């Protein structure tokens, strides 16, 4: 059966060849789209590990302030916390949700290869403010002030990478700044949180380590600080103005910008979805062309093969048989076109050209295959139905 169909396809090789080339190109673009969808889809399935509702980020630039910064910061936190409408205030350095300021460190544990991790330096309120789920142990608290070895909290990705099924609590981890060899720290794991992803729902899962912030020695000057403020529902511009006013009044020279986390999240989503939209538009256009090509070719084929159809009907083939023949012929042609496409697509995971997991490529291929097969099937239905309606007597008389 298949051999016979292949022979039929070969007899019309000029038209079929062009169509196969179209199908191949469309498959490759759909494969790209499928991979993008797979990346986004896999990321969306997991929660980001924090809640962004009613949280504002206050980014403070210290503008070369020469006064000691630590007392100012303490006063600021106290004042902001006392505002009616404000629930909690937390100070965090680097890798706060949707932040572009990231600190990467090399983490090492005895008997394990080193790992690049994102580091967050923060205080006791951070986890409660962002409603982060705690899987093991506890978050930082006052007990840690007297601890001999500084406490460390890790997220789920880091726990899996370092400890697997073995217990994580109580283990020692050494950290070294990725660029500055002099910045080192060591600590003991006191807690494990869920998979905290600073990039939000569409950010990549990554190992993150949290360190409890210790007030630095006098005279240490930082360029910027980030405060997270959780506010009561229903508060708006008036409270924001009030907070900005307080910061200006207390710090004199610092500048501040306040952004709701929900705004930052919308921007991050837009960034991630833009390439999807672009490739999607191009794919839709290519599919439209494939549809036109398929319709044209099939109608042409059916009008030219009326005698063949008439003969088959006269010899006892039912209308369904005729319809099926055209559908299967198109599907065989699609398969022929997709084989080289799959071969090309398979090179991506085999060569590992882009740093994406094999899952993504497989899902991408699957999505492209499904879309293309369903699409060609839909385009074949109407012409096949036309072919099936041909009356043997009429077709043979014309001949």
């Amino acid at each position, binding site marked *: 059966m298949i051999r016979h169909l292949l022979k039929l396809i070969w007899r019309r090789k000029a038209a079929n060849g062009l*169509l196969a080339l179209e199908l191949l*190109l469309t498959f490759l673009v759909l494969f790209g789209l499928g991979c993008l969808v797979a990346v986004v889809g896999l990321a969306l399935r997991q929660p980001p590990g924090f809640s962004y509702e009613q949280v504002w980020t206050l980014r403070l630039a210290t503008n070369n302030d020469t006064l000691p910064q630590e007392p100012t910061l303490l006063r600021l936190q106290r004042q902001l916390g006392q505002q009616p409408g404000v629930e909690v205030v937390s100070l965090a350095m680097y890798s706060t949700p949707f932040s572009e300021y990231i600190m990467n460190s090399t983490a090492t544990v005895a008997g394990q290869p080193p790992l690049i991790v994102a580091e967050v330096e923060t205080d006791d309120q951070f986890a409660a403010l962002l409603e982060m789920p705690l899987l093991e142990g506890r978050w930082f608290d006052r007990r840690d002030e007297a601890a001999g070895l500084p406490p460390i909290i890790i997220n789920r990705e880091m726990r899996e990478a370092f400890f697997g099924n073995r217990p994580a609590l109580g283990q020692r981890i050494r950290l070294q700044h990725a660029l500055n060899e002099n910045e080192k720290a060591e600590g003991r794991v006191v807690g494990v949180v869920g998979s905290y992803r600073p990039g939000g729902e569409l950010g990549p899962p990554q190992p993150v380590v949290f360190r409890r912030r210790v007030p630095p020695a006098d005279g240490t000057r930082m360029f910027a600080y980030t405060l997270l403020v959780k506010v009561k529902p229903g508060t708006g511009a008036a409270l*924001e*103005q009030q907070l900005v006013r307080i910061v*200006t009044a207390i710090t004199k*020279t610092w500048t501040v*910008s306040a952004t709701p986390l929900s705004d930052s999240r919308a921007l991050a989503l837009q960034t991630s979805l833009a390439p999807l939209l672009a490739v999607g538009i191009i794919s839709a256009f290519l599919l*439209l*062309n494939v549809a036109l*090509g398929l319709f044209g070719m099939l109608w042409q084929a059916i009008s030219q093969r009326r005698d063949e159809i008439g003969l088959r009907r006269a010899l006892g083939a039912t209308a369904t048989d005729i319809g099926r023949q055209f559908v299967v012929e198109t599907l065989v042609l699609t398969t022929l076109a997709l084989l080289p496409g799959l071969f090309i697509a398979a090179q991506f995971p085999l060569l590992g050209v882009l740093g994406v997991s094999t899952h993504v490529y497989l899902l991408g291929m699957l999505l492209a295959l499904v879309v293309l097969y369903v699409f060609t099937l839909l385009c074949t239905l109407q012409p096949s139905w036309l072919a099936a309606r041909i009356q043997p007597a009429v077709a043979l008389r014309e001949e």
Partner: protein
Amino acid sequence: MFLSYLKIAWKVLLRRKFFTLTSLVGISFTLMILLVGVALYDRAAGAYAPEQYPDRLLFGSYMQLKMPGNGEMKVRPSYWLINQHLRKLGPGVQVGISAEVQAVAAYVGGRKLALALKPTDGGFWQVLQFRFLAGRPYSERQARSGEAVAVISARTARQYFGAGQPAVGQVLEANEKRYRVVGVVADVPTMRFHAYADLWTPYEPSALERQPEVPFGESELLLLAPSTAAVPDMRAALRRAVAAIPMDGDSRIAFLPSTLGESVADRLLARYNWTSKPVQLFRVLSGGAVALLLLLPALNLISMNVSRMRERASEIGIRKAFGATAGTLAGQFVVETLVLTLLGGLLGLVLAAALLRGLSNGYLAAYGHFQPSLVVFGWALAATLVFGLLSGAYPAWRMARLSAVEALKHARA
């Protein structure tokens, strides 16, 4: 003769409705997508105010920092570095400095007005040609002393002071700081990110960027050459000036100046950590997309033309029998293809204009006004004509060479 060709072509197009539809849709959609894409890019990188002379502009947003043992890093220069070392780049070269926009807030009657503030020096106003609706820019002297003055956009003026109210000389309070408005400029679309802001002010005197011996910050260098021919000299002068900057230890820095178009590609792809060479990737991606967009309709056109000619064997046979030469017949088929392509092209232009009009009024209103580019329309139409002729010419030539007997014998109804 030509007129009768046209008449026949029109009749043929009407008779083969599906073929006509396929070709028209293929050609017009291809042109529409190309025109819209290029219009968007043109809005971001074409010659519009404030970047009136893109050929003469260079932007130094990033430097390459090479530290022994630590590899390479991409960093942005600070105001101090540019101001101290890169001010003198040859006769006639204008130098400007600006920083990334900062989100600041102004409050008007209990409402928050989110504003983008761009710190600049005085030279910024010489490099870029803003259209001033009222007042004038602040001077280099004012910028140097960090005076609390501001140039604001027309939209900001309208939202803060009210429509029709004078803004120049008034005080605008943003982030608890009081700025005296010295000028109002026409709105700049956000796509024009080198110039875009709602509020332009001098750098704060206390800003970290301005402190001596701080080489890295969040600024960029803007350069305007006196003429297009002087741009290579300007690049060379910049390279020399950067090489002369004294650095600690064995560290070395190099500027990576880019043209307006390159910086747009850079910006589009910089958000995605896909590559370290965004300009090349952008070229490959857009080139690939254009090739695909042209290739698929062309394939359709070819396959349709081939099968159509076979269908018209009887017509060809009769005309040959009555004495038409191969040349006459081939000419007729070529005219048919031309008519079809031109019709599709016109349709595409209309579609693109309608879509861009819709986009300018709705979704992309913040990005300015869009128009389809007629130059691109010409090129794209030429490309489809070439495809159409290629696809039409070969079957036409083959069929025109058929002998009359042969054609009539194999003809089908």
